């Protein structure tokens, strides 16, 4: 009886339970226990929903100009020395072309979040595959692939983007490509490092001994096991990308009028800061909340996925 005890007790506890708890389920539990991360997810979901349903939330279109209310503050603005009040339905006031700021902030959110997600997704796919292949195959191929990354790294990002935009003219799609093309480099490095340490794990060797081919090993064993650090990095990349887009738009290299993004709005707002501070404050506030949320989620994910905790 004593001989079998440890195994037998473990067996008795969940004899009926057939489905196991995967590490992902465990991580999700821990993530939802983290208050900051939950608040972050909530705020992010709220902003995303507002951006998606922006046309339903306001009676104004994002390009509608009302020349009667140019640079007018919202009604509830505490400072009474402003030029004019925009009236009841302009909750965030209007901009210097008489457009409703509330709806423009939400449309800006659409662009910023889309750039953030798509560019990150692009960098994720390229970076993970590139890094996993370089790390797993190793040798000469690894050397060549990583030197390519080093060369791309050494190109100054802003020059690179400016040159691209000058050659191909300003276009929305190019923005994704330009940002994604730079962000995947770091991802590839992270993934390669993780792959190198995974490669010599016994379960990879066990798969090789079991006759599994290299492509299947990379897809089935390597990538799922390095998703932890990758997911964390992704949540920290999205804010980076949003910032990069804002920076480019601020310089006038981003999206084109009348479409807008948080970067454009903040750029415009900064010019009017002294006479119409709401034009800076609202987009800046939205962006700050979004970036904070992503960072909290990233922190929460890192804690939740940390294998040392197990």
């Amino acid at each position, binding site marked *: 009886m004593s001989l079998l005890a440890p195994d037998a007790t*473990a067996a008795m506890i969940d004899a009926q339970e057939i489905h196991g708890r995967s590490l992902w389920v465990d991580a999700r539990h821990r993530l939802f226990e983290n208050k900051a991360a939950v608040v972050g997810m909530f705020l992010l979901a709220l902003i995303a929903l507002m951006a998606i349903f922006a046309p339903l939330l306001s009676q104004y279109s994002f390009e509608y100009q009302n020349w009667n209310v140019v640079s007018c503050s919202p009604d509830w603005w505490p400072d009474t020395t402003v030029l004019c009040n925009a009236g009841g339905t302009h909750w965030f006031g209007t901009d210097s072309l008489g457009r409703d700021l509330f709806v423009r902030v939400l449309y800006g959110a659409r662009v910023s979040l889309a750039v953030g997600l798509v560019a990150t997704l692009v960098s994720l796919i390229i970076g993970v595959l590139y890094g996993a292949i370089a790390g797993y195959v190793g040798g000469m191929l690894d050397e060549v692939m990583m030197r390519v990354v080093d060369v791309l790294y050494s190109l100054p990002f802003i020059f690179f983007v400016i040159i691209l935009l000058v050659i191909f003219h300003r276009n929305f799609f190019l923005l994704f490509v330009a940002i994604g093309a730079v962000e995947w480099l770091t991802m590839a490095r992270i993934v390669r490092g993780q792959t190198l340490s995974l490669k010599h794990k*016994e379960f990879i060797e066990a798969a090789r001994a*079991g006759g599994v081919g290299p492509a299947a090993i990379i897809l089935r064993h390597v990538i799922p096991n390095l998703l932890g650090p990758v997911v964390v990095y992704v949540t920290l990349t999205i804010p980076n990308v949003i910032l990069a887009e804002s920076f480019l738009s601020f310089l006038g290299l981003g999206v084109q009028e009348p479409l807008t993004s948080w970067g454009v709005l903040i750029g415009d707002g900064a010019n009017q800061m002294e006479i119409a501070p709401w034009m800076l404050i609202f987009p800046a506030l939205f962006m700050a909340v979004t970036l904070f949320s992503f960072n909290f989620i990233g922190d929460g994910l890192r804690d939740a996925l940390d294998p040392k905790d197990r």
Partner: protein
Amino acid sequence: MADPIFEVRNLDVRFTTHDGEIRAVKNVSFDVAAAECLGVVGESGSGKSQLFLATMGLLSSNGRATGSVKYRGKEILGLSQRKLNRFRGSHVTMIFQDPLTSLTPHMTLGEQIMEGLRVHSHVPREEAEKRAVEILEIVRIPEARQRMLQYPHEMSGGMRQRAMIAMATVCGPDLLIADEPTTALDVTVQAQILEIMRELKTELKTSIVMISHDMGVIAGIADRVQVMREGEIVESGAVEDIFYRPRHAYTKVLIDSMPRLDKAEDTAAARSAIAPDAVKLLDVVDLKVHFPVNAAAWITKPLRAVDGVSFTLRQGETLGIVGESGCGKSTLARAILQLLPRTDGTVVWLGRDLDAHRKDDMRKLRKELQIVFQDPLASLDPRRTVGQSIAEPLTALMPLLSRAEVSQRVARMMTRVGLDPVWINRYPHEFSGGQNQRVGVARAMIVEPKLVICDEAVSALDVSIQAQIVELIADLQAQTGMSLIFISHDLAIVRRLSHRVMVLYMGQVVELADREAIYADPRHPYTKALISAVPVPDPKIERARKRAKLTGDLPSPLDSRAPLTFLKSKIINDPNAEQYRPKLLQVAPGHLVAEYDEVI
């Protein structure tokens, strides 16, 4: 008992974890008298380490200890860190399992040893240096003065553990707590360390608490023994009582499941004789695996991990491969499996010379040749269910099988290795080590291979679980008639399973013989030293034994002189020269021994 120096009363240790509260130590009370050695035995998870970490105030932050711990009548449990530090490291010291992680990498050995002295005893530098050299000589570190200037990474494992003992004893403690101090070391080094600890006890009158899972180690050193299981002391008493008159059923299990070298057993190998006309499965001829290692910026030296190994294996036969860490036994296994490229030599499988570049060959080979790894948890993908892991070789090698067929075979295999098929969707982290190793065995056996290589397959498991897994492997062998290569550093386990045993030293075979011959009549001095270094779980025999000792450490494998340690007369005194290769001589039918010097 005269005045105990260390009294523990009603000690409880609890941990708060994600899965609720765990009570690791349950209401434990015991004493340690002056100049005695208390052995604490238990399997992993029995709470033996946590018990002593708790007494020293070293629990991790989610742990809590209640009860009373008195050192010379003074309560020390719950003291502030500052007060604890005053006697921790001077009156009571601890040694841990892994000697590399317990030493600070950026400080020289001398600084680390003197640190304790200067903090606790406030002795001047010259005095501290003198004491440090003295203590290093006591723990038999040669050239102590030069060694003081070295960093931990420049020393071997055994040397580091000796340095740890020196650090722990330099302040003249009353009590030394050693937590599995020899578990990470090779048997020959373990024998040296235990010798040193025995001397410390008699010469310096230090009390020792020896925590170990190995009954053999305890038998050799302890005066009193307490057996722990699931946080409780199930039995305690004088060493003779525990070993010769155990009362608790668990103590009996622990003693009985220890494989013993000194007694003939009903071994699995003895039960399954090989048919005389058995087919020759595997023929390895002069296999070499060298790794290039950077010696300087542009110069690479070959690390001869496996250097000219030849053997054959017949159907149904079990070959045991024994050697200490770094002898090349795992590399040999991987080279046979074509997981590593070989530098030279041939591997003939069923009369066909294997070539890793021929796809058909490899596919066939993978179906017939499988491996079970050492660490059961590390060898399973943590993100896949055990069912997926077991099915993997099947889906990779027999892609034509239907899904239903695969899951049926997996379920059947799970039953055969003693796992309930309803666990098919569970993950490795939900199983114990023994269960995970059963999964590993199932994965290797699912394609019905002709040869399974077990690379230290039971070394990471507790002794009672070890016995079960060995039994399982032996049963499966009896049912299927497969061959086994059983690799281990543990000579006693190898004896349970093997028909023939091969001893490796520095990538070369030093002795190859039938099981009976190698244990009853070892010829090579290295084999003799290995066999005599294995502790026997019997206090009288263990203490009376005379050991064939190896002095010093294993030489660096990069040094081409290393394999000639036992044939010094042929050495060319240049670490890079091509050296003489000892020939294997047949001393009896089937008993091969490498050349050696009669007098070393």
